[in-house]
C-alpha cells in the first residue's frame, strides 16, 4: 500500500473549484514531483493534505489512516512534515527556537537533541546562526531553516512547496542536492515545483497538473522527453 494515497480529491474556494477530482499516490522511499504552472492547484493540494484547508470531496490516506477527519495539528505527529511555500519561518524567533518548534509534538528531550545535532550537521549554516532571529536570514538560509524545522519532527514523508522559489541558481542546486540526500537517507518526498526541469531531474515519478486536473503522469525521465512537457514546462 502506498504511503500517501489521494483519491478523487476536490477542493473549492467558495464557488471556484481549484482541484477537480485528482488522484495520485506516493510510495515509500519515492521522490514524487507535482509540476505545473502558476494556479494549477499544486499548493492547494499540499494545504489540503496537511489540513490547512478542508477537502470538499475525496479521500486522503496516509500510512493507512484517513486524514479527512484528522485535525491539522495532529498530522505532523503521524509522520508528515510540510515545508510551506515562502518558507514561513517564525521571523521573530531565533533559528534555535524555530528548530525546537519543529519538534513541538515530540517528548523525549535527548532524542530531540539528537535530531538537532543531525540538522546542524546537515545545515552547518544554521548552527552558526542559531541565536540569530530567523527574519534576518537570507532567503537560502530561511529555506534551509524551514527544511531543518520540518526534519525536527522526524518525518516519514516531507512535503516541499516550491523550495527553489526566489533562490539563486547555485542555491537552487544546493537545495536540490539536499533533497536528494534526505531521500537517500529514507525520507519520502512529495515535491511541488515550478522549476520543472530541476524537479524532474531528482524525481522518480511526476504528475503534471493543469488547472485542477492531472494532465499527465509517468516516470520522471520519460516525462522529460515528452514533447508537450518540453514545450510547456521545460522551455525547449
Amino acid at each position, binding site marked *: 500500500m502506498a504511503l500517501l494515497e489521494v483519491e478523487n480529491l476536490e477542493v473549492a474556494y467558495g464557488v471556484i473549484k481549484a482541484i477537480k477530482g485528482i488522484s495520485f499516490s506516493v510510495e515509500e522511499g519515492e521522490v514524487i514531483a507535482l509540476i505545473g504552472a502558476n494556479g494549477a492547484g499544486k499548493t492547494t493540494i499540499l494545504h489540503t493534505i*496537511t*489540513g*490547512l484547508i478542508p477537502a470538499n470531496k475525496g479521500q486522503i490516506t496516509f500510512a493507512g489512516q484517513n486524514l479527512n477527519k484528522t*485535525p*491539522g*495539528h*495532529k*498530522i*505532523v*505527529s503521524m509522520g508528515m*512534515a*510540510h515545508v*510551506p511555500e*515562502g518558507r*514561513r*519561518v*517564525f*521571523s*521573530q*524567533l531565533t533559528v534555535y*527556537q524555530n528548530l*525546537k*518548534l*519543529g519538534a*513541538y*509534538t515530540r517528548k523525549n528531550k535527548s532524542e530531540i537533541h539528537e535530531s538537532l545535532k543531525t540538522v546542524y550537521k546537515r545545515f552547518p549554516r544554521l548552527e552558526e546562526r542559531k541565536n540569530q532571529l530567523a*527574519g534576518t536570514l537570507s*532567503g537560502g538560509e*530561511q529555506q534551509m531553516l524551514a527544511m531543518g*524545522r520540518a526534519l525536527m*519532527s522526524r518525518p516519514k514523508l516531507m512535503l516541499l512547496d516550491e523550495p527553489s522559489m*526566489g533562490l539563486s541558481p547555485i542555491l537552487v542546486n544546493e537545495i536540490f542536492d539536499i533533497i536528494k540526500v534526505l531521500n537517500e537517507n529514507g525520507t519520502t518526498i512529495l515535491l511541488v515545483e515550478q522549476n520543472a526541469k530541476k524537479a524532474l531531474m531528482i524525481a522518480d515519478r511526476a504528475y503534471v497538473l493543469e488547472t485542477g486536473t492531472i494532465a499527465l503522469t509517468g516516470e520522471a525521465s520519460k516525462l522529460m522527453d515528452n514533447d508537450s512537457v518540453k514545450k510547456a514546462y521545460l522551455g525547449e
Partner: protein
Amino acid sequence: MSFISYLINGISLGSVYAIIALGYTMVYGIAKMLNFAHGDVIMVGAFTIFTAMGQANLPPAVAVLISIVVCTVLGVVIERIAYRPLRGTAPLAVLITAIGVSYFLQNVALLRFGANSKSFTSVVGVKPLSLANGELIITGETLVTIISGVVIVIVLTLFVRKTKPGQAMLAVSEDKDAAKLMGVNVNGTIALTFAIGSALAAIAGALLCSAYPSLSPYTGSMPGIKGFVAAVFGGIGSIPGAMIGGILLGVIEILSKAYISSQLADAIVFAVLIIVLLVKPTGILGRNINEKV
C-alpha cells in the same frame, strides 16, 4: 515627601493598569483581536469576590481564588461561543461582537446586583508601611498591588520564553498556519491565552476594588479602556511594553490629579497617548515587523 507618596500611588494604580494591559496585549498578540469585554471581566471578578465574601462569608484569599476560577472559565467560554466562530472573518465583526459581549456582561450584572454602587471590602490584610518617621505611609493595598504587578510580569515573561505552551503562543502570534504545521493546536493556544488574560483580569479586579472600594456594573469599563491605552502606549503585543505603559499611565494620571487638576487628569492621560502615538505609532516598545519575501 508628598511627591514620593503620589509617585508610589501612581505606580500602584499603574500596576493595576499593567495587569489589565497584559490581558489585552496577550490576546491581541495571539488572536489579533481587541477584546473590549476584558474590562467587564474585571467587574465580574470583583462581584464574585464581593458575593463570596459578603454572602458566603468566605475568607478573602478563598474569594480571590474563586474569582480567578470564575473569570478564567468566563474568558474561555466567551472565546469559544462569541469569538471562535468568527475567526477568519472581518476583524470589524469580531470587534463589534466584543463590544456586544461587554454590554451583555454589564447588563447581566445590572440585573443581578442593580445600578447602585456597592462598597467593596478590601481583600488585602497587609498592614500599612510607615516610613520616614510616619511622614510617608504606604498602604497594604499599594504594596500588594505593586508586588503583584512585578511578580506577574516576571512569571509571564518566563512562561512565554521558557515553556512549550509559551513558545506555541509566540508561534501562533506570528503565523497560525505555520504553527499548525508544527503540530501546535491553534485553537487550544488561543483558548489558553484567553484563560490567562481573564485570570489576570480577576486579579486586577481584586486589587483595583481593594484600593478604590466601590463596585458597580460599570466599574470595569474605564479601567478596561485605560488598560487598553496602556497596552497601546507600551506597544501592543509586548509584555514588558504593557508593564511600562501601565505604570507610566498610572503615574501620569495620579500626578496630574495632584498637581494640575483632577478633572483634567484623564484628558492629560489621553493627550500623552496621542503625542506618543504621533511620535512612535507602534508604542514605546512596539516593533515594526519587516516582512521578508
